[in-house]
């Protein structure tokens, strides 16, 4: 996994730059610099293939660019950005699924084939099995599992992004873990 150096800046400082026409572009570049990697990996684990993640990340930042003027500050900037990224990834997956096969295990096959076709994935069979098991989960459980397992996001923050109670999120994660465990036991 590659990481680039970023200059740390507070959300308030970012918003101050974005609020002025003179410093807007600099502010937006800094916002991208600050959040692009976290959002990329969040999206990548949802859509799996790098090219898809790149498309979704670009769409996410275009949405942010258009919508930053309407950010009301009711939630943290980070929460708002994650929510946009999550929605973009879901929309992208749904549009892909409509074009995919109508077979019941279409999404599972799609996940496995995507990973195998992606030149930027070199995980072994057990990693592919894990990704396939995750792909089999219902949408909400899949998102909760990824946010918790990979991003190690606290449930309180997750609740802000997904508009769900902490208790429901914990239950979703618990069910997701059980299902993945069962998937491994079956094979």
């Amino acid at each position, binding site marked *: *996994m*590659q*990481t*680039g150096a970023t200059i740390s800046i507070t959300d*308030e400082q970012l*918003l*101050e730059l*974005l*609020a*002025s*026409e003179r410093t*807007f*572009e600099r502010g937006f*570049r800094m916002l*991208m*610099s600050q959040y*692009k*990697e976290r959002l*990329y*990996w969040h999206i*990548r*684990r949802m859509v799996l293939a*790098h090219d898809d993640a*790149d498309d979704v*990340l*670009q769409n996410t*930042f*275009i949405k942010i*660019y*258009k*919508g*930053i*003027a*309407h*950010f*009301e*500050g009711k939630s943290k900037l980070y929460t708002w950005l994650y929510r946009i990224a999550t929605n973009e990834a879901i929309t992208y997956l749904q549009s892909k699924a409509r074009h995919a096969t109508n077979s019941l295990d279409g999404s599972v096959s799609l996940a496995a084939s995507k990973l195998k076709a992606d030149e*930027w*994935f*070199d*995980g*072994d069979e*057990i*990693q592919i099995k*894990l990704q396939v098991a995750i792909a089999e989960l219902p949408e909400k459980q899949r998102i909760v599992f990824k946010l*918790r*397992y*990979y*991003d*190690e996001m606290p449930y309180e923050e997750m609740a802000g992004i997904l508009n769900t109670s902490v208790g429901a999120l*914990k239950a979703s*994660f*618990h069910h997701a*873990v059980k299902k*993945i*465990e069962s998937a*491994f036991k079956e094979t």
Partner: protein
Amino acid sequence: MSKLPLHDPLPPLLNELKNKEDGFHVPDHYFETFENRLFERLEQSGIERPQELQSFKVKTNKISRYFPVMAIAAAFTVLIAAFWFFQSNVLPTDNEIASTELTEDEIESYVLDNLHDFETEQLAMLPSEEELDIVPPSHAPSTSPDSIEDIIAPEDVESILNDMTEEELEEIL
């Protein structure tokens, strides 16, 4: 990616996989070039910069920007107010009162020196020492020319008149 301890119980297999390389990579310099690629796409798509900026944030930030100055100004105001309050509330001791008490001569000389500040009518209204002796303020009834005989007995009036010189009598009349 952070590696904070995950407190949720995970099956051993998931724990093991979590600590292993997951197999996802990105092309070289992908993140370094991302901003420029996005701005190129924004230009190509003709997406304009948002017109409506975050006025609510500007207000908030103006307050937060001037907060230190406001806090210092408030602190100074409180200090000055506290100093003034304590100064005005320090009661003088008996000795201090005695040392600052003015003598009659001092008062008189002050009044004479500043006579122009006093209205003549106000001065005229001041009772003389004799008047104060004759009619103590605590017993002073509401007087009128008709009731003066109630205050001074006729025999007293006669003796007063006898004590007066002719010039004084002429002045009154």
